[in-house]
């Protein structure tokens, strides 16, 4: 059981099956390269990274909530609410605001909406799915009814400058392809959230309340405070995702992102986070998002109608979670068998 080879394999596998996920990703890339030699190119890589920018940021917020044992379905509403309202406010002020002003306003809005979620959940101990379902309706409704439902094409200067900025340009088959600059802040953000979850008391607290709220309380964590803070953080992350989305699409459409909540949750769960809380990692989440983006991209390259994307992601989710469920059951059976052996001896 504990020979060096197997332990090394186990450590490669990762605590949340990140290794398995990475392996699937690599196998997929190899297969795709055989099928279509165009696949393995800087252009494809950059396209996949660009399309992963917004899903990754949104997934990070969802990850924190899921680790804490909750489910948030209001984050797309928070994302587009914050971003769109910021654009409207900045346009209304008449001043062409810079990037810092835009970020400050939208992140503050995200924090405020997250505070509403966190306050309701922590103060009244309500089921997270139900609360966020309710706030989703309220946020969406307030945005469309009272902030605006108009498509806005001219963005504030702070966003415009970033829309087409690239950080890396390489020649690719005669043409130049470039990597979008916004990949950089997203990578930094992943590292920050990773450190936040692994190395801070807040992060340990989030895992603790996800594992066992009562145990966390007795261990001295202030569950209420932690819950409020974590939903504020999730709100800020959602708002950042919204700003990135508006920047990348170069327009503010208040109907965007809404309805994508389940896709993002699927990516996070695929990345090894347990829907019951207490388990999950930034690395797994990023791999989950990348896997979905690679599959979407592969289907297009293979000439399969994009309509199959939903089915593919659904199948992947069912298979991924199904394998986890079956192996968990086997593991628990092994533990029982082991216990019986010990009891008999």
């Amino acid at each position: 059981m504990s020979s060096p080879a197997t332990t090394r394999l186990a450590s490669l596998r990762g605590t949340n099956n990140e290794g398995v996920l990475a392996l699937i990703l690599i196998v997929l890339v190899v297969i795709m390269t055989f099928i279509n030699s165009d696949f393995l190119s800087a252009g494809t890589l950059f396209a996949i990274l660009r399309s992963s920018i917004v899903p990754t940021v949104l997934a990070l917020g969802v990850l924190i909530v899921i680790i804490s044992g909750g489910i948030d379905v209001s984050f797309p509403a928070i994302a587009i609410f914050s971003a769109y309202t910021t654009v409207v406010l900045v346009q209304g002020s008449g001043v062409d605001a810079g990037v810092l002003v835009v970020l400050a306003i939208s992140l503050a809005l995200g924090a405020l909406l997250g505070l509403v979620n966190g306050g309701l959940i922590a103060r009244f101990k309500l089921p997270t799915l139900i609360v966020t379902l309710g706030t989703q309706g309220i946020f969406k409704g307030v945005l469309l009814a009272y902030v605006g439902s108009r498509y806005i094409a001219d963005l504030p200067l702070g966003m415009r400058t970033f829309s087409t900025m690239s950080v890396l340009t390489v020649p690719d088959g005669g043409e130049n392809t470039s990597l979008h600059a916004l990949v950089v802040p997203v990578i930094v953000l992943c590292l920050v959230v990773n450190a936040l979850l692994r190395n801070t008391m807040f992060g340990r607290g989030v895992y603790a309340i996800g594992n066992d709220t009562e145990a966390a309380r007795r261990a001295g964590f202030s569950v209420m405070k932690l819950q409020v803070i974590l939903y504020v953080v999730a709100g800020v992350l959602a708002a950042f995702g919204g700003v990135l989305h508006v920047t990348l699409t170069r327009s503010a459409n208040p109907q965007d992102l809404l309805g994508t909540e389940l896709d993002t949750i699927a990516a996070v769960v695929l990345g090894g986070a347990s829907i019951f809380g207490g388990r999950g990692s930034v690395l797994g989440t990023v791999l989950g998002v990348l896997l979905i983006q690679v599959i979407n991209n592969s289907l297009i390259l293979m000439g399969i109608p994009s309509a199959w994307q939903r089915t593919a992601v659904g199948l992947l989710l069912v298979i991924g979670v199904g394998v986890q469920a079956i192996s968990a059951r086997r593991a628990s059976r092994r533990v029982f068998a082991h216990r019986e052996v010990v009891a008999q001896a």
Partner: protein
Amino acid sequence: MTDQTTEEPTTRRGAAVESNRRIDSAVMNAISRVHVQRGVWRMLVLTVLAFAIFTAAKPRVFLNPLNLQNIAIAAPEIGLLALAIMLTMLTGGIDLSVVAIANLTAITISTLYTSVAAGNAGLAEGMAPLIVLVGLAVGALGGYINGLLVSRVGITPILATLGTMQIFNGIAITWTGGKTLYGAPEMLVNFGRTVVAGIPALFLVLVAAAIVLAIVINKTALGATILLQGANPVAAKFSGIRTGRTLTSTYIMSGLLAGLAGILFVSRNPTASADYGSSYVLLVIVIAVLGGTNPNGGFGTVLGVVLATLTLQIVSSGFNIIRLTSYDYAIAQGAILIIIMVIDQVTSRHRRRNVPKISNALATPTE
């Protein structure tokens, strides 16, 4: 009293204890019934309140028979989907795939009908009942797949049905090519227009389905196992209940209800598409919870869910009449849901604090 007890101490005392116990259980029963019916009463008050508010605001338009009929025509499909979700919530699960299943049923019916009708219109009409049954079977099959994933494979219901929702929806998109299909059996279209004694036939479908479901939940062994499964899965397992079979039947029934909703989709409008009612998923969860269903399982009433459906339809139609947008309706949905949950939480905490006192007071005489 005292000299009698010396004569026959045991039997007298036994009778006293017995009668005391009977009173005790009757009182506890009444208390628990009041508690059980609380959700229904509250919903009834809310329904009447919503009706009264909009009647007061615009009596002419709101009480117009046409408007009331519109409410009764729009409500059934949502009500059936909410009942489907409520049923799975009773076992402590959830079924996110109901709308996708309903759309698959609608698409199946529309496709079969138009392909047969292309060759022979009369034959297609004659085969209409069969086509509808095939559509219903598609719903049952979708539910069966969910049931297998939940019971056999052991995937958490919310994830299993999230996955199948994507799969069914993907199949529907590919099948229709993202377009809206036109064409439905005349039989269904006529049925959709039928009005019996001022009540649209579609609404009667909801009433019938609700009655059947209420009987299944409250009067059958399957219903009892479903409730126990949700209230305490461990106890259910150790009382010899076949958990897997209960869950599979629950999800098949949920699929059937969704399929029935799909039939109503095509009866109301002879069209079918993959993205019809995409906003229904969250709406029907709101309705189920508002109707008093405990999302953690073990408790919920059919009547509560039907009343919640009506309330939200009344609010939706009323908002239209007083010229509020569908966005305001979204706000109202969310606000109603959260306010009800908060009130529930506050009063149930209060009640939990009081419960030991009541039972102590009742218990002392028997001691």
